[in-house]
């Protein structure tokens, strides 16, 4: 600013030159910035923004097996979905699945993170074990549990029979299948959720606990009054991420149940996959994808809105 003022006082000519140079510099720095960002922008455009727009577009059409649009049908795909018992079942199963998996994942992970946050000898070993499921892929985890749930030779039914109970058709009984898939998912999610919560616990200032100790506060009092409140931003983040992940569940379903029995585990992403790549109804599948996008959008928005005090991106 002061440089500008000096320039005006001396000669108008330098003022103009100065502006010109500044403008040129701005153009150069703009191109430089774009050069650094261009690779990301191009890929986001091709594999994210364009497909998103295209999905919305497709959801208003009927398509052929190659995925080309044939007939514009407006909102009909959406109308069909909301009158289709299979899709309504899929939505119901998805929300039930979220309800089964999210709270239990958080409670178990929080428990693990709290006992693994104590300063004890060998604690590193336990932390490694608890985070281990993060390194286990969805395909491998599903195979592990596919055996555990096996009706005759699976470990769970063997244990049940050993104690005199009847075996359960974990993956074949419509009343149990979603529950079984949920157990698998909870186990798979533990590692990641545990790591994040442990990080949150470790960032709580230790003087809070020290002063509580001086006041003679008990363990559970400290948990209630210090740990949970101080951890709330992390908890909030973990809840949102777990919910979003639950809505995106696919691999477990594909290996364990293929959406069955009688569509009881046909979660929304599996339903999209089936509609698009088995039935070749890309329009209807796109309408489902748009609904999935809206659900995730709302979840992310809530995360930003209510988590914003602690989520600093700027």
């Amino acid at each position, binding site marked *: 600013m002061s440089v500008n003022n000096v320039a005006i006082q001396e000669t108008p000519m330098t003022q103009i030159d100065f502006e010109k140079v500044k403008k040129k510099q701005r153009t150069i720095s703009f191109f430089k910035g774009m050069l650094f960002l261009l690779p990301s922008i191009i890929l986001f455009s091709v*594999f994210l923004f364009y497909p998103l727009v295209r*999905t919305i577009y497709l959801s208003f059409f009927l398509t052929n097996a190659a995925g080309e649009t044939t007939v514009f049908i407006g909102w009909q795909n959406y109308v069909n979905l909301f009158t289709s018992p299979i899709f309504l079942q899929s939505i119901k199963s998805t929300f039930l699945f979220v309800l089964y998996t999210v709270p239990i994942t958080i409670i178990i992970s929080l428990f693990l993170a709290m006992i693994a946050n104590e300063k004890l000898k060998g604690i590193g070993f336990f932390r*490694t074990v608890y985070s281990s499921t993060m390194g286990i892929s969805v395909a491998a985890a599903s*195979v592990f549990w596919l055996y555990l749930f096996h009706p005759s*030779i699976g470990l769970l039914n063997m244990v049940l029979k050993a104690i005199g109970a009847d075996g359960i058709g974990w993956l074949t009984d419509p009343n149990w299948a979603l529950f079984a898939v949920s157990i698998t998912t909870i186990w798979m999610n533990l590692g990641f959720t545990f790591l994040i919560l442990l990080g949150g616990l470790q960032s709580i200032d230790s003087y809070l606990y020290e002063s509580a100790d001086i006041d003679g506060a008990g363990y559970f009092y400290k948990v209630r009054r210090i740990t949970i409140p101080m951890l709330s931003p992390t908890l909030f983040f973990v809840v949102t991420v777990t919910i979003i992940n639950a809505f995106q569940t696919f691999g477990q379903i594909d290996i364990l149940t293929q959406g069955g029995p009688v569509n009881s585990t046909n979660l929304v992403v599996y339903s999209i996959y089936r509609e698009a790549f088995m039935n070749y109804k890309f329009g209807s599948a796109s309408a489902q994808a748009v609904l999935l996008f809206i659900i995730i959008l709302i979840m992310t928005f809530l995360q930003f809105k209510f988590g914003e005090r602690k989520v600093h991106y700027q």
Partner: protein
Amino acid sequence: MTMPISKKIIFYILLIISALVVFAPTLMAFVMSFMSNKDIMTGSLPTSLSFDNYVKAFGQFPLLKYLFNSLIVSIVIMLGQLILSSLAAYAFVFLEFKGRDVLFYVFIATMMVPFEASIIPNFHIIRDLGWIDTYQGLSIPFFALAFGTFLLRQNFKQIPKELREASQIAGMGDFKFYLSVVLPISRTSLLTLGVYGFLTSWNMYLWPLLATTNDNVRTVQIGLKQLQTQEQLNDWGVIMAGAIIVVIPTLILLFLGQNKLQKGLTEGALK
């Protein structure tokens, strides 16, 4: 402050029981992979242990090929993410230009689009490019990563601005500064992001299932599904051997990088 012995014992008991429960499925799979099919079928404890299942798994399925494919795809995705994220993060931290803030919000917005919701056009794009059954089809769609950009941006911001000013006086251009100063300083964060990228790529399932149709480029996760569905005799020992082979690289990576990963993920998530 030291803990009383009684409290210590309670914690150790809880820790050990929890560890057994959490690790049980993995441990079970590991033991089963060395057991004979007869022992598994009758539900007895292992009477003999051998590498037979591994020999069979490698003999009957192109597991080595699958492993190689997964390795290539994961490394390529990891490198792509590191390069693109660090370039973008550099622009957001060190360059000032018009529209930067708008672009930053565009990057945030990408986090709201789940890949699953745009999978249909993505599949058609890859198909129309002729990229089905190719490494580029499996990797390039995942190069741009908003999470990675945020993680590195957070780290780059801690580099003193004076360093850039000094380098400017010395006549150093932006790209040179990025290569010779910023990247070496941030190698810890780059490593964290690299481990994260490798883990998630190695474990990817839905996209490789769609984008591969033959064994030449099929990744090990889809290979495991093949192993599980084609294993006619219900030979669980062989299936578990396959599963153990699939998880060993990621488990090792996780054990080595656990501390850094935890720190990095928490920072990327909450700061």
